[in-house]
């Protein structure tokens, strides 16, 4: 019992350090996304935007937001010992993440009337969406690992740092898109 208590106390201490590390990583990544975000306004101002499909932008944004809802549900379920809802939520997040990727890379990139080589603004559009999509892909891989481990019976209400880290990372990717969506799809008019 003493050993268990001391181990749990060590785990909690490590958890605090892990959390700090993850947030520092997120902060550093924010600067990269922030640079891309500022570049968009430098190149196009607030009166112009890339010639993209607004409805598709709305759909992929909704998909990502709903995925965050399921991720939060999955994490809360694991933190309170509900493995069934944890697995369901993780799987739903994973599927929605893949749908988002297909929407942006598989559809938007194909129907956009410009390519990455058509000037700085066009190139920036592909950099912003591509860099973000790469983060989504990383999140999907992370989710697959967490889902697989969860199915094997790993994690408990006391010890589920991987689930929490995966959730925080996923929500971060969502927050980035919350800013990218109006910048790429809503603010300004497409070129005539």
């Amino acid at each position, binding site marked *: 019992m003493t050993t268990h208590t001391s181990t749990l106390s060590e785990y*909690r201490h490590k958890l605090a350090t892990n959390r700090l590390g993850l947030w520092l990583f997120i902060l550093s990544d924010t600067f990269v996304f922030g640079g891309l975000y500022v570049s968009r306004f430098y190149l196009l101002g607030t009166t112009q935007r890339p010639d993209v499909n607004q409805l598709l932008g709305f759909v992929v944004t909704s998909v990502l937001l709903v995925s*965050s809802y399921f991720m*939060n549900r999955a994490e809360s379920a694991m933190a309170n010992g509900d493995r069934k809802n944890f697995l369901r939520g993780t799987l739903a997040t994973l599927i929605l993440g893949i749908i988002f990727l297909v929407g942006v890379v598989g559809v938007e990139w194909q129907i956009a009337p410009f390519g990455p080589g058509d000037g700085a603004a066009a190139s920036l559009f592909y950099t912003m969406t591509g860099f973000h999509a790469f983060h989504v892909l990383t999140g999907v891989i992370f989710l697959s690992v967490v889902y697989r481990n969860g199915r094997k019976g790993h994690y408990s209400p006391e010890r589920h740092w991987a689930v929490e880290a995966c959730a925080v990372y996923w929500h971060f990717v969502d927050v980035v898109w919350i800013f990218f969506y109006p910048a790429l799809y809503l*603010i300004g*008019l497409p070129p005539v």
Partner: protein
Amino acid sequence: MDEKMMEDRKQEAFRIGTAVIILLAVLTIGEYWLGSIASVWWAPLLGIAILKAFFVVRDYMHLPRLFASEEEAQE
């Protein structure tokens, strides 16, 4: 922690999660509508984005956990 307490905590977390997604949905629809009718109004669109990000960071990413004590953060 007993099962009843965990169940209550889970239900509370689910309730907050649902309230946040409803709020995000309303804001996103408003954002889309605003972008379609007045796309040069960048300030309100940026304001909506900040508001949405605030709720995600606070309620989904649980930023306050970072500043909690080790015991509180576990709860």
